[in-house]
């Protein structure tokens, strides 16, 4: 099951990241996971929030360039080697990961990671077949 990540284009300007976070925070939107991909001249903020639709509307109304990206929330054994074991399975089945980052909360006793795949549908098939637990949008909202 896919979940929604919001990607926000950030110019290399002082305070831009703060502007995004204070906007979301000021409207009761809670950030569940985030990461920033940066280059020399700009950044892309990737964020999973509890109210995606409201958040993207808010961002666009405030002149931010923001869009939805499909990602998957995967549970990973919370122990040394836990991530490696998942990555091994994905690699053996030719599932290509573009990037990943961690959630602040856990869903169960396992660690929770956001993963963006080159081919999301194919990845989900493999995850299901390999019985790797994927957390749904609704379950994310409840975190």
């Amino acid at each position: 099951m896919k979940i929604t990540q919001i990607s926000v284009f950030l110019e290399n300007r002082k305070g831009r990241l703060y502007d995004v976070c204070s906007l979301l925070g000021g409207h009761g939107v809670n950030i569940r996971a985030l990461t920033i991909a940066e280059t020399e001249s700009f950044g892309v903020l990737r964020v999973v929030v509890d109210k995606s639709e409201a958040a993207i509307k808010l961002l666009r109304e405030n002149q931010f360039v923001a869009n939805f990206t499909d990602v998957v929330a995967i549970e990973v054994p919370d122990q040394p080697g836990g991530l490696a074991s998942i990555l091994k399975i994905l690699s053996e089945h030719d599932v290509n990961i573009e990037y990943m980052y961690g959630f602040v909360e856990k869903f169960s006793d396992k660690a929770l990671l956001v993963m963006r795949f080159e081919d999301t549908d194919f990845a989900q098939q493999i995850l299901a077949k390999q019985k790797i637990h994927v957390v749904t949008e609704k379950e994310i909202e409840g975190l």
Partner: protein
Amino acid sequence: MMDIPFWNREIETAERGRIEQIQFQRLQETIGWALKTNLYRKRLSQVGVNSSDDIKSLGDLRRIPFTTKDDLRVSFPKGHLAVPMNEVLRVHSSSGTTGIPTVIYYARQDLDNWTDLLARSIVATGAGPGDIFQNMMTYGLFTGGLGLHYGAERVGLTVIPIGGGNTKRQIQVMKDFRTTVVHVTPSYLLHIHSKLGEDGIELKDLALRKAFIGAEPHSENTRRKLQDLLRIDAYNSYGLSELNGPGVAFECVCKKDMHVWEDAFIVEIIDPKTGEPLPDGQEGEVVLTNVVRRATPILRYRTRDLAFLHPQGCDCGRTHRRLSRILGRTDDMLIINGVNVFPSQIEEKIMKIPEVATNYQIHVDKKGALDRLTVKVEIYPKLFLGEVSKLESLKHRIVEELRSSITISPGVELHEPGSLPVYEGKAKRVVDERPKD
């Protein structure tokens, strides 16, 4: 009193009457060639000039309408070619205001004439056989490289055809070959100076004595600075490819502005608004007619450069008038490290890229001694899908598209929509932060 060197003393010190006689004769011949071209046939006929005999005095030049860069764009590729293509030995081109470049063709005699003018220019500065000449201007379709190259060979200098760029190598070559004369843009020469010492080569290890500087406007202060820093004499050079390239005007050993070679070029200074001629001493737009080129005759070309002609003679005894340094432009053309860039070229390319919205800005500043061009664009929100690599490759694509038109690589910055100033109508999108020395 220093010894004044001449390549062709007789012509260079000829009486004004004799110069004008030569101009008139050559103008008539040039009109004959111009009538063979699509560009001029009709417009000459419209003012009653149907053969070279219809030009009865130098004053008749004023009957002929001006030629603009736009005329050359419209007549691309061969509308201004006066000879069959198999008589053309060389083709050069330079920036056009749009994607269409300006092209100039040279027949054998034209190349010989051009080379001779450069030989004359080089000798006027006191350079000669025994000098080691490092030609640091771009070769290829630009006229700066090959122009001085052949002129220098004709005089008998030892020529190092190194072209532009690769600063470390330039300095190494200066040391290895004991270069005495360079041809370069003033900003690049300043840049070279700033890099001395980095690889263990100091000024004392070099043998430089003269620099021919041109291709970009620069002040007397800049020339003095170069001379002081490098302990050389620096001579100003003026030219444009439409009129051959370098060798239209050059400074002599007096270094008090550049002699226009008036047996080869008829120079006029006009009021850019009215087109009326202005007297010597008054600043206006430089208009040039090349009377020693048959393949591409160009009559009364509006250079868009602003300057004045000195009424007084020069201490060297030459009777060819001196043109001041270029004081500005009548259009919005930029010169970035010696390369002409029209904002319209940039606009044309930006408009063709769908991921980029229509708001953009052209930013020019200095990075050390060199000019730096940055094009700032706003990205189009709908096409942003969150991938860094796509944005990076968009940036590279924009750089490549621009480079294919303006020949240099600009910096490109991606900005959020609404973050750049909004331009209304034909307002200038160019922000030029270079100090007006």
